């Protein structure tokens, strides 16, 4: 009896299915078809949304599903004269799987959009039946299930007005889509490396992640990490090439995430191959994303180890012997750089001056070499450990943090002041009044070597790119070998002096001239400090650089006081204590400025808005209403510090003088809403205009009311803005 009843029930349900045909629930996914408009107007395209909600812990796929998986397809059954466009996918996420594969897709609900174009000759009063047969693959980490469903929707013919009930759904769906852009993107593949390049108007400050998702398969390896760099107005991204990298054109999604952003900005780009494009990144700060982890470079269990998780040969295919050799040579050349030259030459001269015994000379040379190698090994080890831990660091990693750069700059200033004779370093061995580089004996030589490496590091980055780049893709042991070779090269001149007596005899005889020489050598140190402060300025901004210079000034004062205490024979403790106090206080005051890129960005944003070309007032509904009531044409825009698209538009269009001029001529008032902290008031305003996020650009012509703005596209250009307000 029960069996019959359930059979009957099943038949009834099956018969009723066409009526219950939207949304449809499959074992692992629920899908639905929703129209943006409540009716179909003849000839007026409308948008349909295909909503897909997989079961928890299951996922569906993007157009290019990655290493495995399957895209979603829809076959349409439409009345005559109707045509349907391609499925538009929201920006996918990376779904690493099993330590060996990467897929692209959606771990939660996703909404695909399609544009339907009705014919111009639709009979009014009729209905439009729409049937979509969707097929997709839904998987969890154990298995995959292909599913399909038939979705039916019937719309009346009418005015094609938007259905307010679905406004939020479509706003969210559109916000999840990549913004199509027409940037001139070029790409190339060479020796197993793929490179993408495009103009990029924003600085690299705050960029946490850059990823490229190609639509075409075979161009890139999906498991490899992607390295990005912003330099000279260009964004360049490289990764390992795929199994079929010979396409002439490409398309795909580029995502860029700034610190503080809830999700990355996504752009749909198309590009052409440029065979002249180099496949490597120049030396500089690299942002590493992707790989088999959760977006950081470097992950466990991939076999190749280290941050080069794709196991490819070192970028540029520099061989190990060549890398070692060039590291050695580079170390040798380092001795000529303004960072190191003063220290080396003074050390060498101190050898001559003290009239060392042959054995003493050898001891000092070995101690110096020991100091150099140990410090170099420690720095290299720190770098390798950081990379293994997933940090996206390159050799100049200590130059990425402006606080570190400022500290090094201060060190240079201090050493310069010492060489200039403002104060002296005294040790028990050497007695009073020696410069730091001439502290005697093996112990002094060891510490001089360590110091030499520390002050040399800023100078290594510029010309050691190839050899140091090679270290990043090699196993840690070999990478360390290269760092040590660099150290050895640096210590070689001093080693030679210690072991080769004839060389020592070539050194000039000591004399009064040495004192002058020592003071002259202060200037290369100050020059290096200048260069480092310039880097701070570029990284954080003018104010931070001046803060650093102020600390340097006060430090100079403090050290002068120490020097005075030394000269007049006053207790050393007072001098040093005063110095420590001054440095501590000013350092404490300046540090927050130096560390915060956000502060700089915030300040810059403030100055841009206030004293830049466009004068803008903060947005509020009251301000908007007042302006509209007085008949003033008003331009309203919403932005956030972490929103890449917003910043690009500001740089490329809003801040242009010709735009400000056009706005002034048309008497346009500007209101700007800052959504950096994502407060609810602004979120409500965004929703009011059918948007789910920033940016949003609205123009209220003279006489418009609050609900009738002209909504501008996501990507602004100066001609577009000028035309809008004219």
């Amino acid at each position, binding site marked *: 009896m029960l069996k019959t009843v359930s059979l009957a029930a099943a038949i009834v349900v099956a018969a009723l299915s066409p009526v219950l045909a939207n949304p449809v629930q499959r074992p692992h996914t629920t899908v639905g078809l929703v129209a943006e408009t409540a009716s179909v107007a003849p000839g007026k395209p409308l948008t349909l949304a295909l909503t897909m909600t997989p079961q928890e812990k299951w996922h569906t796929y993007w157009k290019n599903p990655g290493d495995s998986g399957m895209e979603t397809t829809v076959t349409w059954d439409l009345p005559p004269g109707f045509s349907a466009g391609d499925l538009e996918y929201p920006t996918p996420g990376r779904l690493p799987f*099993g330590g060996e594969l990467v897929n692209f897709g959606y771990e939660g609900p996703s909404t695909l959009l399609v544009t339907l174009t009705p014919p111009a000759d639709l009979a009014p009063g009729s209905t439009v039946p729409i049937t979509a047969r969707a097929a997709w693959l839904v998987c969890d980490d154990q298995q995959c299930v*292909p599913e399909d469903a038939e979705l039916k929707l019937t719309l009346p013919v009418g005015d094609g007005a938007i259905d307010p009930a679905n406004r939020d759904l479509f706003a969210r769906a559109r916000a999840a889509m990549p913004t199509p852009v027409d940037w001139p993107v070029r790409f190339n593949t060479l020796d197993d490396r793929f490179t993408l390049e495009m103009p990029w108007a924003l600085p690299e400050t705050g960029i946490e992640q850059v990823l490229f998702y190609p639509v075409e398969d075979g161009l890139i390896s999906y498991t490899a990490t992607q390295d990005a760099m912003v330099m000279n107005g260009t964004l360049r991204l490289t990764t390992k090439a795929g199994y079929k990298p010979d396409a002439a054109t490409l398309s795909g999604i580029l995502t860029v995430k700034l610190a503080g952003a809830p999700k990355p900005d996504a752009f749909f780009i198309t590009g052409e191959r440029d065979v002249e494009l180099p496949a490597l990144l120049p030396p500089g700060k690299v942002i590493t994303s992707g790989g088999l982890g959760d977006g950081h470079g470097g992950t466990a269990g991939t076999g190749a180890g280290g941050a080069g998780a794709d196991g490819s040969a070192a970028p540029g295919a520099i061989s190990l012997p060549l890398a070692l050799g060039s590291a050695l040579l580079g170390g040798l050349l380092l001795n000529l750089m303004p960072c190191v030259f003063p220290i080396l030459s003074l050390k060498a001269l101190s050898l001559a001056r003290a009239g060392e015994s042959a054995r003493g000379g050898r001891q000092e040379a070995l101690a110096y070499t020991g100091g150099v190698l140990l410090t170099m090994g420690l720095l290299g080890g720190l770098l390798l450990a950081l990379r293994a831990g997933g940090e996206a660091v390159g050799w100049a990693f200590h130059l990425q943090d402006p606080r570190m750069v400022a500290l090094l700059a201060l060190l240079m200033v201090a050493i310069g002041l010492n060489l200039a004779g403002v104060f002296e370093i005294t040790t028990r061995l050497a007695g009073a009044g020696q410069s730091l580089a001439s502290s005697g004996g093996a112990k002094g030589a060891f510490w001089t070597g360590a110091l030499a490496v520390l002050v040399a590091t800023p100078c290594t980055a510029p010309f050691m790119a190839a050899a140091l780049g090679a270290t990043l893709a090699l196993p840690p042991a*070999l990478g360390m070998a290269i760092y040590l070779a660099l150290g050895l090269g640096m210590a070689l001149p001093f080693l030679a002096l210690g072991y080769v007596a004839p060389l020592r005899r070539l050194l000039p005889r000591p004399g009064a001239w040495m004192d002058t020489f020592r003071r002259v050598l202060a200037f290369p140190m100050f020059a290096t400090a200048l260069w480092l402060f310039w880097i701070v300025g570029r990284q954080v901004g003018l104010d931070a650089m001046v803060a650093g210079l102020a600390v340097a000034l006060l430090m100079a004062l403090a050290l002068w006081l120490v020097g005075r205490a030394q000269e007049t024979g006053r207790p050393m403790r007072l001098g040093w204590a005063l110095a420590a106090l001054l440095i501590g206080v000013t350092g404490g005051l300046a540090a927050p400025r130096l560390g915060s890129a956000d502060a700089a960005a915030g300040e810059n944003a403030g100055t841009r808005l206030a004293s830049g070309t466009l004068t803008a007032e903060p947005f509020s509904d009251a301000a908007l209403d007042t302006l509209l009531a007085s008949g003033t044409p008003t331009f309203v825009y919403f932005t956030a510090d972490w929103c890449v698209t917003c910043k690009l538009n500001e740089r490329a269009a809003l801040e242009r003088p010709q735009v400000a001029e056009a706005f002034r001529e048309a008497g346009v008032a500007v209101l700007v809403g800052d959504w950096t902290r994502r407060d609810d008031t602004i979120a409500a305003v965004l929703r009011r205009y059918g948007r789910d996020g920033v940016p949003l650009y609205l123009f209220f012509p003279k006489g418009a009311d609050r609900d009738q703005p002209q909504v501008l596209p996501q990507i602004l250009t100066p001609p577009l803005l000028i035309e809008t307000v004219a």
Partner: protein
Amino acid sequence: MKPKTLLSALAVTIAISAPAFAAPKVGAPAPAFTATDINGKTHALSDYKGKTVVLEWHNPECPFVKKHYDSGNMQALQKSATSDGVVWLTINTSAEGKQGHLTPQAAKDLLAAQKAAPSAYLLDTDGKVGRLYEAKTTPHMFVIDPKGTLVYMGAIDDKPTANPDDIKTAKNYVTAALASVKAGQPVADSATKPYGCSVKYN
């Protein structure tokens, strides 16, 4: 540092710097491997020099594999190839506890039930061979010519669906590759995007 120590250190580092392992590449020698089959016999790729070899990655529970087995398509391919002297190796890389993992006896039973006819069914539970070939999906097909050169890698055919109806209208890349190798001609579609479930590595 003593010159002798320095020199020997350099020598050692040069020796260690073996070339980084390259991914499988069409036109290059197919990666050498050894694996054990369900009868306990060891097979090496080098055993089959002089013969065309097909590698087929398998997972009996994957809907895309079932598409080709339930319809008899894969078995027919295997029979036609092996009767032509081609060596067909079906490889199972599903790790223990993962979907598709088979014990030797279970595999024997399955082959008998499905009337599958590979030359051998290899168990690659630790994933060594899978990683060597960067096998991504099941099925994932590779064709190696008698000289040991990889001439095809990718999908079994050009319809990446789980629908068996698509088999008859699909272009089979493996059949095409085998025909080209037999005729001594270059394979037209030598590298395609494989489709299927992800290989369940350990």
